[in-house]
């Protein structure tokens, strides 16, 4: 039993909110921004997206080609490792399943792990199983409008069942990996997997 904080009452979430909040999280109505450096700004005519296999095969889409892919609407709760959760965020994007299927036609073979790479040098590692089967998207619309650069626009990875640092902003590439190599925050003390429901915030958490 942790020590009682004398005089602390707290602000209880409603029972509905409480059931949607992973352990240690609180609800915010804002959309806070967390980035380790300046916000990169890539013009759409220079933007492309690449899916790359370990064997060096790749599939590439320009912005226009990407926009022609079938898109999905997603409404989801998101959970940031810095403790805030935001309920019912709405996005539009291309399912990773769609990209994997398109890439397979060009000989891009799947591997068990993926490294997402972004403009500005950010990286994060995710098992392929957590990106496939309707669990993740490349999102470019937030709340009905083009995704703002501060929040990862023109396009970010959206993996809402993991802590939000896995949803790499400004994402440009998914690279297959045979090993689960840690990305940026995963090399700096954060958890290799990052399941909010198991409160996997930091290296060493179960």
């Amino acid at each position, binding site marked *: 039993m*942790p*020590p*009682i*904080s*004398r*005089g*602390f*009452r*707290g*602000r*209880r979430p409603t029972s509905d909110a409480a059931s949607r909040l992973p352990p*240690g999280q*609180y609800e*915010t109505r*804002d*959309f*806070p*921004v*967390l*980035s*380790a*450096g*300046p*916000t*990169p700004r890539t013009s759409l005519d220079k933007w492309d997206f690449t899916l790359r296999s370990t064997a060096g095969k790749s599939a590439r889409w320009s912005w226009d080609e990407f926009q022609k892919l079938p898109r999905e609407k997603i409404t989801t709760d998101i959970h940031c490792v*810095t*403790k805030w959760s935001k309920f019912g965020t709405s996005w539009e994007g291309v399912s990773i399943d769609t990209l994997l299927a398109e890439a397979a036609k060009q000989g891009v073979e799947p591997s068990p792990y993926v490294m997402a790479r972004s403009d*500005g*040098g950010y990286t994060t590692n995710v098992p392929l199983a957590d990106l496939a089967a309707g669990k993740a998207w490349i999102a470019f619309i937030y709340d009905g409008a083009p995704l*703002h650069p*501060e*929040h990862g626009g023109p396009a970010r990875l959206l993996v809402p069942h993991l802590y939000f640092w896995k949803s790499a902003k400004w994402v440009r590439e998914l690279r297959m990996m045979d090993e689960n190599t840690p990305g*940026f*925050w995963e090399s*700096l*003390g954060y958890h290799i997997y990052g399941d909010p429901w198991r409160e996997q915030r*930091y290296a060493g958490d179960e």
Partner: protein
Amino acid sequence: MDVVAETPRTRTVILDVPDWPGHRAGQHVDVRLTAEDGYQTERSYSIASPPEERNLSLTVERLEEGEVSPYLTEELRAGDKLEIRGPIGGYFVWDISTGGPLLLIAGGSGIVPLMAMLRHRDIAIRSSTARHQTPARLLYSSRRWDEIIYREELEKLTRTDDTLEVMHTLTREQPEGWTGFRRRIDRMMLAEVAWPASEQPRVFVCGPTPLVESAAASLVDLGHLPSLVKTERFGPTGSTS
């Protein structure tokens, strides 16, 4: 545990942490509060004390709508216990061995992790010849004179160290005879204050999101390498400082 007033809205909580593993300037801790019925909530706070100090200090700004900061700034008192976890964060950190020049840009309580860097630097240069290799500049944006956190300590540091410069901007209200900046941090101010990009200063920017976004973008515009500009943002997009 002790609590010290800094400004009308900020308090420093000084903790005696048994078995503290040590930290680097710029890191933070998670604070967890537990109510009598077992309800818990957690928030992160930057460490204000340098690694060299035995006690751990957190400077906390009271947010009117906050759940934890009003408790830490108003309810907590000497002798209370606090559950913390850390240190956390390995990117927004600076050690004397990282070198300089060191350029710090702060907005409001964003000064806290940067103060840990200045305190660490002050101790380190006094015990070595590193002083002239690591000049430091701080540009600090506050609303009013009495909201400048660590104001007297910053004055003292600059009096005793000619390789440290501290520049304030007061965005809401300035005392009579104020000669410092009186507007939000902008590109022109950064061009005036920052070392040229060619000197490759190590830059740390911490404050409310709009301030950090605008300062970081201006620095990149001025030619600073994005990889040398490290940022920590708090609060929502579009908030005012």
